[in-house]
């Protein structure tokens, strides 16, 4: 039996989907409404799953007293109420699609020292979700 723990977090941010690889017309055609030059926003939900042994002393894989402030510092504080394209350095070079946001959040949370990050799942809206479980597996 393998055990994992999943915690859900939220942030609200704006973005615009526009790729410098394409012309304005192609961007408009490819991204549609999401290409609006003024940007738009979402209430993102981030599910963070960690695995590892359950510590017999605490009954925990990861203490939320450690995981919550780590996620807050690495993701929520730098992403919440921001314009992702301009205020998160990563997205000056890549398009802040939720695929790329999921990878960037995974990269940031992979450093969590107390348990192994298994998966990041993001709901961009209640209808769209994206998962990234790292390379390898």
């Amino acid at each position, binding site marked *: *039996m*393998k*055990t*994992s*723990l*999943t*915690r*859900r*977090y939220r942030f609200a941010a704006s973005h615009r989907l526009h790729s410098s690889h394409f012309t304005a017309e192609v961007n408009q055609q490819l991204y549609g409404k999401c290409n609006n030059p003024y940007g738009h926003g979402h209430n993102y939900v981030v599910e963070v*799953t960690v695995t590892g042994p*359950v510590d*017999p*002393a*605490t*009954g*925990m*894989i990861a*203490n*939320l*007293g450690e995981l919550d402030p780590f996620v807050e510092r690495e993701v929520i504080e730098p992403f919440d109420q921001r314009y992702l394209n301009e205020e998160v350095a990563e997205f000056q070079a890549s398009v802040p699609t939720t695929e790329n946001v999921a990878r960037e959040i995974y990269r940031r949370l992979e450093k969590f020292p107390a348990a192994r990050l298994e998966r990041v799942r993001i709901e961009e809206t209640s209808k769209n979700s994206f998962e990234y479980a790292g390379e390898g597996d």
Partner: protein
Amino acid sequence: MEGKSVPGKDTMIRITRKVEFSAAHFYHNPDMSPEENRRVFGKCNNPHGHGHNYVLEVTIAGEPDPETGMVLDLKELKEILQSEVVERMDHRHLNYEVPELAGKIPTCENIAGVIWRLLLPKITKGRLDRVRLYESPDLFADCTADAANGSGGRK
């Protein structure tokens, strides 16, 4: 095996039944000092306890029986969940009233593990695939078959 037709594999179905129970708990490790307990467990260390509406999702994987079209009759699964989990844990204090949790901190991880072990011998059709226990909508633990052992139950 995606995209390949592997007999016995490509028609596997997962069925999930949900059940709820409400229970009290608190976190306290008697081997730690009161200060250490407060530092590690925070508000959850309140000795008067607190409670949650737990939501349990149990997933069974297997082949539908050719005669019934079912992996496992959900009515049977409902009865197993009732007798093994709800009757043991609903409206109970998990620290004091559930023998299977004795000596364990009743965290989401440990409760899910106890439920996994309670259910494993009771699932006689299909195999136990996942136990997911929500302590709140924003926090849940999953127990799944250990890949190293191939399966938590029968293949």
